[in-house]
């Protein structure tokens, strides 16, 4: 039953995604891959689309996956599911749970979740970069254009941070700008 699967899958995402947009990506990836809803390539298209459209990535992903798998009802269900845990928990915090949030044991658990999530995000990011460069995961199938592109983008991001000229003028490369540059470079390298 696809509706139930969507509901449960995105409830899980909403309940376990701590610490903002990028923290949710490994979880979303886990859920959509294990259910066979998207593959890694489709996932990264969707991350890019989510970055370039307004709204939280988690909500965007839920709407998209829900829609492709279960039409308008599926997307409404998945979106509601991803939002509900946060909604309920904040209401509880406002009305009842203030003290629980400040409990030292709860804090100890939260403090250990931060490095755990950071480790997961770093691993997933590196893996997705690798996957882009080595599409089949065999050393002989290196996609040199992708490798060059990745190196170029990483360099660009690094340079705009480090070079004084940009820092002084507060020129920052936003995710959306990087995505636009990457798409133009993709068209140049892979052809029209």
């Amino acid at each position, binding site marked *: 039953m696809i509706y139930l699967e969507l509901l449960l899958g995105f409830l899980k995402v909403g309940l376990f*995604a701590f610490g903002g947009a990028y923290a949710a990506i490994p979880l979303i990836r886990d859920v959509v891959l294990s259910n066979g809803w998207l593959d890694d390539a489709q996932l990264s298209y969707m991350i*890019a689309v989510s970055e370039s459209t307004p709204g939280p990535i988690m909500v965007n992903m839920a709407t998209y996956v829900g829609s492709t798998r279960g039409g308008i009802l599926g997307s409404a269900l998945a979106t509601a599911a991803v939002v509900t845990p946060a*909604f309920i928990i904040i209401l509880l915090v406002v009305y009842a749970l203030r003290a629980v949030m400040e409990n030292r044991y709860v804090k100890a658990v939260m403090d250990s979740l931060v490095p755990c999530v950071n*480790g*997961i995000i770093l691993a997933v*990011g590196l893996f997705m970069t690798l996957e882009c460069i080595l599409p089949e995961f065999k050393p002989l199938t290196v996609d040199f254009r992708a490798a060059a592109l990745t190196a170029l*983008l990483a360099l660009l*991001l690094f340079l705009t941070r480090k070079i004084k000229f940009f820092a002084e003028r507060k020129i920052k490369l936003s995710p959306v700008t990087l995505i636009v540059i990457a798409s*133009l470079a993709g068209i140049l390298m892979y052809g029209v």
Partner: protein
Amino acid sequence: MNKDKLKTIAELFLTFFKIGLFTFGGGYAMIPIIEHNCIEKKGWITHREMSDLVVIAESTPGPVAINCATFVGCKRGGVIGSLAATFGVVLPSFIIIYLISLFLDNLLEIKWVASAFKGISCAVGILIVDAALRLVKRMKKDVTTIIIFAVSFVVMMAVNLLGLRFSTVTLMLICGAAGLIVYIVKSRAAAKGGEGKE
């Protein structure tokens, strides 16, 4: 429901609809916009409440935007207010992404769009690595934290490279339990040490 209350609810919905429509890049990008609208323009919450809210949003699950909308809505208009604000903040991206989802597959069949997305998929990996590095920089760096970070990283990398089935939720539960145990053991030891001195 009286007229004033209805007006508050409508205002909450419209304000958060606008916030949802103009925030690109998710949660943290939204915080300054919420500050501008809800503190400076409307006076719905105080600066003090806002900084509380950021801490709460960070330590509770779910999108930061939803956390903020629910919190402000609840402060201003109770449970119905929080429903209105949350619904308002979600609606713009829901509509936009739903429309995109109807056309994305057709779009990808066009050669230059597929090329563009191939380039984009390289950028996404870099963006995630970059976000992770920024988070690591901000992270507390004691022994327990570093061990948990390293173990999570290695496990997750191995799971991905070897194509294993291992849920990130399981990993988080294990890390949470480990953190709790370490904390209890440490505070016991500290308590004992204290008794010894007396």
